[in-house]
């Protein structure tokens, strides 16, 4: 399983400024990886290109051993005509009911399955949305700030559970949380600020798994490395 970009350039139609400029990187093997950087540097644009959007770009994106790529973002909504539990059941493929029950429990959503989507808090909305994607068949799942508005402790629980339950899948996590990305991601593609003409850097994260032992020194070093990169 490999995701590789070579000399990728992308400019939105009608714009003169390239959002992605000569980007090359490679991510190998299943795991939890990240795109990190300030707002407006092209993280979401890159994610959409990777997810095989229809936009035209220069350069190459290569997906090795990846059939299904899904992209999810934090503003998605579920239809409001029935309960979130009802929707979740409808989109759960046969044989994955057990996984659904488990995810609902880990994501702490058992009590809100009878509620409509509009009645949930923003954090709950993002969690229920993420669950329905995790229940689908995929090789690469891109999470664009999918855990926004979720408290830090639960976010950690969710990320560790995802890493545990989907060890054979690749994830691309877009987040603005430096600590979280440094702790849980294996490869971190850091986007530099375009105004300072910094390129993109691939940095190795701590890739903590369940029941990890925190090595503060190593974590600080990773965070420092990321901060220096953008």
């Amino acid at each position, binding site marked *: 399983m490999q995701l590789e970009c070579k000399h990728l350039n992308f400019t939105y139609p009608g714009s003169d400024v390239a959002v992605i400029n000569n980007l090359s990187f490679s991510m190998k093997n299943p795991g939890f990886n990240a795109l990190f950087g300030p707002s407006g540097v092209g993280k979401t644009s890159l994610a959409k290109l990777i*997810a095989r959007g229809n936009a035209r770009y220069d350069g190459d994106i290569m997906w090795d051993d990846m059939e299904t790529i*899904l*992209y*999810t*973002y934090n*503003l*998605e*909504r*579920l*239809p*409001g*005509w029935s309960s979130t539990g009802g929707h979740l059941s409808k*989109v759960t493929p046969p044989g994955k009911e057990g996984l659904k029950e488990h995810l609902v429990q880990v994501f702490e959503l058992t009590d809100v399955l009878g509620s*409509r989507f*509009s*009645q949930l808090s923003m954090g709950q909305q993002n969690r229920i*949305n993420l669950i*329905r*994607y995790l229940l*689908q068949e995929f090789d690469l799942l891109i999470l664009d700030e999918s855990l926004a508005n979720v408290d830090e402790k639960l976010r950690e629980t969710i990320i560790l559970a995802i890493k545990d339950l989907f060890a054979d899948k690749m994830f691309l996590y877009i987040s603005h949380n430096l600590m979280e990305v440094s702790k849980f991601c294996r490869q971190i593609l850091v986007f530099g600020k375009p105004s300072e003409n910094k390129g993109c850097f691939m940095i190795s994260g701590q890739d903590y798994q369940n029941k990890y032992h925190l090595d503060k020194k190593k974590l600080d070093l990773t965070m420092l490395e990321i901060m220096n990169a953008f």
Partner: protein
Amino acid sequence: MLFRRIYQFLIVYIIGIGFLLAIKAVLSLSDYVIPGIPLVIETAGQVFTGYFFDVMNTLSVTVLGQGISIIMAFTVGIAGRKSSWIGSFIKVTAYNIQAYPIVALAPIIFILLGDGFIPRLMIASMICYFPLLLSVLGIMATPVTDIEHFYIVTGRMRWQLEVKIRAFENLSKLTTVIAGSATLAMAGTIVAEFIAANAGIGYSIRIALYQSDLAKILIALFMIGIIISIYQGILETLGEVIKVKWSISKKGEVL
């Protein structure tokens, strides 16, 4: 909602009558030009029952015509929602045709079909069809990306689901447009009856007009106003019931 509609109409009607009476008083006009209140009440006693059945006759054509135009607007709107050539063709055609005053076509319909029920129904449907179609097209052709994304990327999207999502997300807009189109359908029916028909309140107004009987016309306007207010109120109440049944209030709207 129903009573609010009736109150609103009564206020407008009373202001209108007051304005006419003020003109009558200022210009010292006779009852023949602008009738006084006693004459209006006396005329009401004479024609109320007849006009009531005339308005009900008109309303039946209105309801049927509106129903037909709603079905047509949804059928064409759903077919024209895609950005394919057929969708674009339907949209451009609808926008161009609606720019033409449909009432101007009424004489052609009467020449071809004569007086009677069918021409009235056709004109009522045509007058409220195009504004309805534009609204339905606008709603159906606008993707609700935040909801549709999941179904598209997971290959679950079907046209029925797409229509359901877009209709649900625009439920308030749709019910308002449908309730509003009732006035258009009523206007279309009355215009048709006014031009050439042998029944309905428009036909009675035409007779009153030839008799220069403003009292009868004022009574007819009162009956039309009250009945259309009740009809619109019922439509709006039905819309609310559907909204409440299908969805529930959003958290943010409560706070």
